[in-house]
């Protein structure tokens, strides 16, 4: 293909390799020195890492020890079970999980078609939307609730009474992360070609979205959902300001009366959140493996396989 438009060129090409080989030679000469410098950097890195780990884990381990021991008794789950003896505890956990699921569903239902549309029809607006999706990070919960409170008291006074009123707020605060997870998944998909191909085969846009896009977006949908759950499980400010009794609110309340129970609970919650995050990275790694197609890198081996 390179030869498709060949004007008269001098047949002796410039020796293109020399620059690169010279650079390689220089690299080999300086190799010893660089290794020693790199070694020193390496040691420094380990020191910084160890210090960070100590600072990070000490409070965690301390709170775990504090939560799972009693003076004179030793290791015990008594504080944890005592915290759960509160009849409100189970209800708070159930409500929070329910809110997490509803938030996930609402976020995905809102954002998947929106981002697909932006990618297909308005790639420039997609960039703007991505920038706008970050805004919730810089809006404090207090400001959000204060503003929304004024609005809803005027428009729908009963709305904020229901615990489900938290869902739209959660959709907003999880948007930066959910948007990014979905956007990354959709960017890897060659949406325009898939939609055009499906249309030429008779599929409507909605059918393409549900039958072609969603199945190929599984990994991104799962990570978005897990991010949603993780954030909702830890969200305190909004629920507290709107006077809803969710798990984080319960945790803080318990902490005032029974600090050991609260410490044990928060440690367990943290482990659960980490579990979710580990699941996300596992899933996205699996997704990446599947997506690595031979078409992306046509190689000599594909030529050999080509004989019918």
């Amino acid at each position: 293909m390179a030869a498709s438009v060949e004007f008269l060129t001098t047949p002796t090409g410039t020796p293109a390799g020399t620059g690169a080989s010279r650079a390689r030679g220089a690299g080999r000469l300086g190799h010893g020195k660089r290794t020693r410098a790199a070694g020193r950097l390496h040691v420094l890195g380990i020191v910084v890492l160890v210090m960070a780990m100590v600072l990070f884990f000490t409070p965690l381990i301390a709170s775990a020890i504090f939560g799972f021991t009693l003076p004179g008794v030793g290791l015990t789950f008594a504080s944890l079970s005592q915290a759960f003896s509160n009849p409100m505890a189970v209800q708070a956990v159930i409500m929070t999980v329910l809110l997490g699921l509803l938030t996930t569903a609402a976020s995905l239902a809102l954002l998947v078609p929106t981002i697909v549309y932006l990618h297909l029809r308005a790639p420039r607006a997609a960039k703007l939307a991505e920038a706008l999706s970050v805004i919730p990070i810089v809006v404090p919960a207090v400001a959000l609730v204060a503003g929304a409170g004024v609005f809803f008291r005027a428009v729908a006074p009963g709305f904020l009474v229901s615990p489900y009123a938290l869902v739209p707020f959660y959709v907003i605060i999880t948007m930066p992360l959910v948007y990014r997870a979905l956007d990354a998944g959709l960017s890897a998909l060659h949406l325009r070609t898939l939609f055009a191909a499906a249309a030429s085969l008779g599929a409507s846009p909605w059918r393409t979205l549900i039958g072609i896009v969603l199945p190929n977006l599984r990994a991104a949908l799962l990570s978005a959902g897990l991010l949603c759950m993780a954030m909702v499980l830890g969200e305190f400010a909004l629920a507290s300001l709107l006077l809803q009794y969710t798990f984080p609110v319960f945790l803080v309340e318990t902490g005032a009366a029974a600090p050991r129970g609260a410490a044990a609970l928060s440690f367990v919650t943290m482990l659960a959140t980490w579990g979710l995050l580990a699941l996300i990275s596992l899933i996205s790694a699996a997704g990446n493996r599947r997506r690595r197609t031979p078409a992306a890198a046509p190689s000599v081996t594909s030529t050999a396989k080509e004989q019918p």
Partner: protein
Amino acid sequence: MTTITTPLREEFVSLSHVMKTYGSKTVLSDLSLDLHRGELLALLGPSGCGKTTTLRILAGLETPDAGSVHIGKRDVTAVDVRRRGIGIVFQSYSLFPHMTAAENVGYGLRIRRQAGRAATVAELLETVGLAEHAAKYPAQLSGGQQQRVALARALALEPNVLLLDEPLSALDAAVRVQLREHIRRIQMEKNITTLMVTHDQEEALTMADRVGVMNAGRIEQLDTPAELYRRPVSPFVATFVGNVNRMPAQRTDNGTYAVAGRPVTPIGELPAGTTAATALIRPEDIAISHAHASGTCPGLTGVVHSSVLRGSLSSVYVDVAELPQPVRVDLSTAQASAFAPGADVSLQLLRSEAVLEPASPATAAHADAAHAGDAHEDDAQASTASGTAQAAGVRA
């Protein structure tokens, strides 16, 4: 062998007076194009010339600002892609990654809820030579295999028109050559009217019944590959399809032009008042012989600079004093071995027709001034002309 029974000249698909602009940029200006039933027409052109937009308008993926699209007798200008009866093969990544090859091929049939799908799918996969790969996912297939699945999928609904959007450009060279023969064979067997878009001239020339060369939203020439190559109507077509040598041409007293001492008839019209021009001469249209052997024929003399082996053909590059760049002469590799670098040779034109590119008076004057100092020992006249050619060459 395949025989084409339907009359070739019957117009089956036509785009008439199609316009398309994106914002302030005009991509297609008044484009008209007819495809005959059963032919493979290739649109060839540099990127951004509007060839893909043309294909997308025929597909229904873009709406023209003006003009109409007919398939058969039906006006489909406002008809959705889904109801146009077309099959499309895209450049790459068009297979549904979560479906096997067989599921991909059967997708359109499934949407139509057609009975006996499995048999149709098996037959199509057999046609493209992938029967044993039916259960594989796209990621498990090579690039060439993926494109063959895409072709089978596009053919599954028995479309009236097949559209190939640079179907081979993402593949490596060996697969490309093999697959283009494969696609051409299937296209001829099914006798399906096909529009292919490509920027690869070799692909267009070897596969198509007719080739349209596009430039800046217009079709510059629509012709059979042979005509296109031998009688290009414009300098753009001549340089875009095939290789050319640029040689100065002077107007003679009797109104013809002289290139390397030989009278040459221009292909196509030249603007009135053209006195100097650049002739675009194909490398195989020049004969090369050893200087001492050349008889009385007028021609150019030069020294062999180097030669490049291209397989059965070789290119011999000859430094000619009057010309700024070496002249490329293509001849069979066996013959080329007689011309070692440093040999004195003479060159003669083999054809009396050539595409001429007029040199504007301004560039001619400029070139005269720039090259006033290095007049050649042989002939001051030739030096001036070569200066003009050089200037024209640089600007082209």
